[in-house]
Structure formats: structure tokens, C-alpha cells
């Protein structure tokens, strides 16, 4: 593909053909009316996102800057996530954390009832559905029963 001056001149002549391409007659008389009608119909009302997209359309450099900023923010976030979790991302750390076995009895439940039968365990500490915790009262000690875990009831 050489670019001889003669061929180049012919190409320029050939390209002038495009200047002779014209839209249908009367097209340019109607176009402004169509555009202003669409504007009046509210198509130009700018929202936040459309304004942002427009700004990015006018200046592609803004789009590049935004993309770089987002990449930087994601990179920084990932880096600090690694640092704070000692080399493992937080999400992974959560994923590999072993689930604690629930076979152990709570410390208060393992305590024999004989040690201190008057002690009423805190209601929320015992998840045993059999135990019906009573709220301790100063005035009605006669009805108060020692509460022991179900596993100790014979």
C-alpha cells in the first residue's frame, strides 16, 4: 500500500463523493422541531446518574480517571483487608473458621446441684428447654426449687 501523490489526490476526489450524499428533502426543516419536542417532553431532565454519564461521555479522560480511582480503591481495600487479617482476606478467614462443637455443657450446668442448691442459674445461660427458670424473689423462698439441668434429674 504505497501512498503516491497521484493516488492520494484520486482518493481525495473520491471522498468528495460523500459530500453529495443528502438526506431526504425537508429533513432539516423537521429535525429542530423533533428535538425541541423531545426536550419539552422532559427527555433532557438530568438526573444524577445521567449527568455523570454525560460528563464521562464528553470527556473520556474523566471515565479513565474514574476507572483508575475505583481500581485503586478496590486494591487499597484488598491490601488493608490482608494486613488486618494477617495474610488472609477477611472473607476467607470467616469461611475457614471452625465451628465450635456444642456437645460441651455450659459451665454452670456442669456444676452439681449439691454444691449450692439455692443458686439459680441465669436464665439466658441455660439453653436446655426442659429447665424452666424461675425468677428469684426475696419474699417467696418456700416455693423456690433448686434448678438443676435435665441431665442430672433421675
Amino acid at each position, binding site marked *: 500500500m504505497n501512498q503516491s501523490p497521484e493516488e492520494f489526490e484520486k482518493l481525495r476526489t473520491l471522498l468528495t463523493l460523500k459530500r453529495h450524499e443528502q438526506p431526504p428533502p425537508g429533513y432539516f426543516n423537521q429535525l429542530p422541531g423533533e428535538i425541541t419536542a423531545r426536550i419539552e417532553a422532559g427527555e433532557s431532565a438530568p438526573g444524577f446518574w445521567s449527568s455523570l454519564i454525560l460528563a464521562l461521555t*464528553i470527556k473520556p479522560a474523566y471515565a479513565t480517571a474514574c476507572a483508575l480511582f475505583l481500581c485503586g480503591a478496590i486494591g487499597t481495600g484488598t491490601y488493608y483487608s490482608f494486613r488486618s487479617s494477617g495474610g488472609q482476606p477477611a472473607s476467607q478467614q470467616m469461611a475457614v473458621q471452625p465451628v465450635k462443637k456444642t456437645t460441651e455443657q455450659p459451665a454452670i450446668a456442669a456444676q452439681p446441684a449439691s454444691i449450692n442448691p439455692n443458686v439459680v442459674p441465669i436464665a439466658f445461660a441455660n439453653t436446655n428447654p426442659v429447665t424452666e427458670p424461675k425468677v428469684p424473689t426475696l419474699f417467696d423462698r418456700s416455693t423456690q426449687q433448686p434448678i438443676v439441668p435435665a441431665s442430672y434429674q433421675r
Partner: protein
Amino acid sequence: MPAEVPAPGPDDITLVRRAQKEDLAAYDELIRRYQQRIYATLYHMTSNHEDANDLTQEAFIKAYSALKSFKGDSSFYTWVYRIAVNKTINFLKQRKNRYAMSLDDLDFSAENDPDLVALISDKTPRRAAGLAELQEKLNAAMQKLSEQHRMVVTLHDVQGLSHEEIGQIMDCNVGTVRSRLFYARQQLQGFLSDYLK
């Protein structure tokens, strides 16, 4: 493109100030001033009248919605051109190869252009058919160029804009414009070699 002739009536910046205060009549006047050049550029980029029509309308509507941010650092003409050009390049990237040509008719003066007639006279005895065929080949060759190369050829060789104006519109320096123009012409010469011998 003919040399820029100052339009009669208020200048662009006066019309822009009025349009910024939601004076649609002023904006209508601005559209009338630049619609032909904007439409022509978008048509040469798409080779499709309907696409060019849609893009021209959308470009002017977008420009109106962004008019409040127009500070007057560049001319209104360059500013609206930039919106139209970037919108078209985005459109063409989405369209990729799914295009169908819908060409405008050639005006009567094309058949009487001696340079064009000389180009086709030895190819076919039927002048009108020759021009129509040439038009189709030329548009097909243009569509083979990349969007950036096609835009530079359109703005410079068809529309007659200077390298500096193209640089402002396409947001690149003059050297890049020249380089793109060189490669675009080289490719076009290859695609249209049958008509350039």
C-alpha cells in the same frame, strides 16, 4: 465543508446564555445552525440515515441537558461536536459488525462533478449506475476502518475541519490526528485500489 460563515442574528454565546435560561427558541436556532454538519458527520460514520438521525437528536438533547455546565472555554460548535462524536463512537462499539447500510441519495450535482465523472468514466458507460456503485464501495470501505480512523477521515477529508479542530473534538493532540489520518488514507487506498488506478 464550506468555510465558516458567521450566522446572521445573535452570536452563539448569546444564544447559549438564553438557552441556559431554558429559552427553547434560542436552542432551536443553535440546532438549525449546526444540524447539517453534525448530521453529516454522524451519517458518514454510520453509513446509515436512521442511525445518524437518532444520534443527532440524542446528541442535541444531551447537549441541552448539559448546557448549564457549558462555561464557554471552547466554542459551542466544538463542544456539541464532541458530545456527538463520543456518543457515536460508543454507539459504533456496541454495534460492532451488526450494521446495515442505509445510504442517502446523491444530489444532482454529483453527476455533473467533472472529477467524479473522470473517476468512473472508464469503469462504466452508465454514469448514474457508476456513481451509485462507487458510493456503495466507498461507504463499505469506510466501514472497514476503525472508529477513530473513520472519524478523522470524515472530519478532515469530508467535512474539511483543520487538524487543530479535530484534536479539540477528539481530545487528542495534532500529531495523533495526523498519524491517524495517514494510516486511514493508506487503508482506504488499499480497499479502493480498483478505483484509484
